[in-house]
């Protein structure tokens, strides 16, 4: 007998006492909990996102779409980055104002982790952002690239389009995401609570996370 059959057989024998129940799953588990906590307008939700991101030590910037290229240029210059990783589908306008001395590094399949380790910064979009938890979610779309490009460089600039990409809650975020895509949920920079249960920011992932909330329109 294979272990598969053995385990499935044990499960069935273990449940022999339980009466049959063919209630459909949707009815078996009622969900009286809230879809979101509190009612906020678009501005209120963006404010909550900004506050919760900042609470977990992400650096939050706010901009309109027109000001975005200037802001990204400023952030890269301020950081002193010599190189920046660029996902294939990043809006070229976002880096239009960035100093041409800063090397643009493409997200290539053949680049090794060691090569990525020598890149200073990475700029991406995101799939969705969750206000209640201060979370941004990446799904590997062309404006975000492979998972490793937002992991190895020590400085991540993530642009969130407001209000289009902002939701209030975890349930709302899951609704928008595609499970088959590789997903990374990020709430602040890398951190640990392993020493005396005190939270310390900055371990293996990017130690600096800058989130730009880019509001649609010109003001």
């Amino acid at each position: 007998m294979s272990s598969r059959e053995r385990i499935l057989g044990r499960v069935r024998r273990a449940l022999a006492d339980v009466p049959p129940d063919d209630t459909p799953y949707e009815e078996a588990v009622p969900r009286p909990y809230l879809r979101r906590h509190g009612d906020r307008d678009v501005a209120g939700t963006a404010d909550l996102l900004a506050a919760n991101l900042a609470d977990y030590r992400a650096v939050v910037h706010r901009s309109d779409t027109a000001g975005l290229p200037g802001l990204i240029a400023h952030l890269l210059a301020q950081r002193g980055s010599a190189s920046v990783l660029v996902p294939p589908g990043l809006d070229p306008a976002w880096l239009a104002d960035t100093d041409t001395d800063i090397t643009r590094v493409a997200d290539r399949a053949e680049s090794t982790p060691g090569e990525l380790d020598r890149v200073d910064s990475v700029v991406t979009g995101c799939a969705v952002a969750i206000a209640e938890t201060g979370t941004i979610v990446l799904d590997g779309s062309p404006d975000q690239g492979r998972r490793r490009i937002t992991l190895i460089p020590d400085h991540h600039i993530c642009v969130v389009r407001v209000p289009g990409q902002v939701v209030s809650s975890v349930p709302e975020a899951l609704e928008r995401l595609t499970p088959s895509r590789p997903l990374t949920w990020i709430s602040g920079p890398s951190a640990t609570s392993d020493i005396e249960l005190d939270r310390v920011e900055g371990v293996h992932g990017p130690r600096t996370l800058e989130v730009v909330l880019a509001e649609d329109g010109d003001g």
Partner: protein
Amino acid sequence: MSTTYLGMPALPAPGDRAFPSFPQAAHAAVRDTTLRGNLRHATHTIRAKRAKAVAEVSDWAQLREAGRRIKDHTLRHLDRYLVQVEEAVTAAGGTVHWAANAAEANRIVADLVKATGEREVVKVKSMATQEIGLNEALQAEGIRAYETDLAELIVQLGKDRPSHILVPAIHRNRGEIRDIFRSEMSAWGRPAPEGLTDTPAELAEAARLHLREKFLRAKVGISGANFVVAETGTLVVVESEGNGRMCLTLPETLISVVGIEKIVPTWRDLEVFLQTLPRSSTAERMNPYTSMWTGTTDGDGPSTFHLVLLDNGRTDTLADQVGRQALRCIRCSACLNVCPVYERAGGHAYGSVYPGPIGAILSPQLRGTATDIDASLPYASSLCGACYEVCPVAIDIPEVLVHLRERVAEGGTATRGGNKVVLRPAKGHAAERAAMRAARWAFTHPGALAAGQRLASRTRRFHPRALPGPGRAWSAGRDLPAVPAEPFRDWWQRTRGGKDEAK
């Protein structure tokens, strides 16, 4: 009885050494003032934070109830969901393996690693792989496993055992951690930086530098999972440091060892647990990183993915009508942090990778109650119920503890290795059983009870303060109840229930 190897990290080969019973192990721990201080500081810090994080969510009770129902439903139909997981993961490009016990899981993983030609692996913190003693099994095959979670690294470098589910090095303070890094890192790779101090930020930086070279060259990663979604075949790992992302993304081969109770039926179910787990464990609105992957993705992450579904006592636990609720556990560790016994005894006394209240009901079910440690664990509690209060999936831990105490004291049927067995009553509980039999007789013979009570009252000035003979152990930690001058029933009759009290 099962002869399954349930290896513990940093211990001699199985069978070489049995764990002492909980009272023996705790006896030493409660006298260790450094340990007591470390545990008290850490558990009290996290308690207050957790309470705050939970209070932020007005529908906590509803989320908790939904979590309980999702897990109960999954366990009720576990055979169906296991098959669904297998189909979905296979369809997404993964390979599914089934392991009935620890030895089989270790064999599968070791063979998979050897097939890659690699001799080292990087590991994400995983309770399941600790439970089966995977690191030691790999070492025996000449494969070196590097723990990459900061606390696991501290434990591995210190040749120590984990003492907490979430923070395995909770028994170490910052000074001890610095000393371990200074003396041990060089034997494993990059040494600790010169002049390393004990500030947590510097210690985290030392770990970052030490592990980075390992991440960047790793070809095989090994993980567990917090959740497996049956309908999509998606695995979920929640973490803080980014070591999980490194191990899940950079290697070419990923092997995930997951207990069969980790399944949730639908994608939507994550909306419950991704709200309750972070707040219960690290007391955060959300943990810094959560990775979700479904099979393999072309050009992004590992090109080979193996899922090892682990039983190792879980189906035996499932067979117990009272005890099966322990399989709802999502390993948040909130019950450890509020437990007065854990706070004083520490995690090592529980003799298992699962310490604290959840360990006291999980270990004796996964491993059986044949050993001293497993037979004593159901008693490692004051039954205060704080663990049940904070449990995000509403496991009634006190109920299961009492149930397991009954099994230890009275014996009875249980399931071991998939077979029904009849357990004999454990030794050492004969006096307890005799007392219970005597009580049963007395309560069904009112005349004898009344006569006995009067006799006790009249002789009360001669009563000893401690019990003699075999009762001494019982009264060593308790005061004997004072016998009243007059039995309650005599008083009730004499005063007509207190109405004539003035007389």
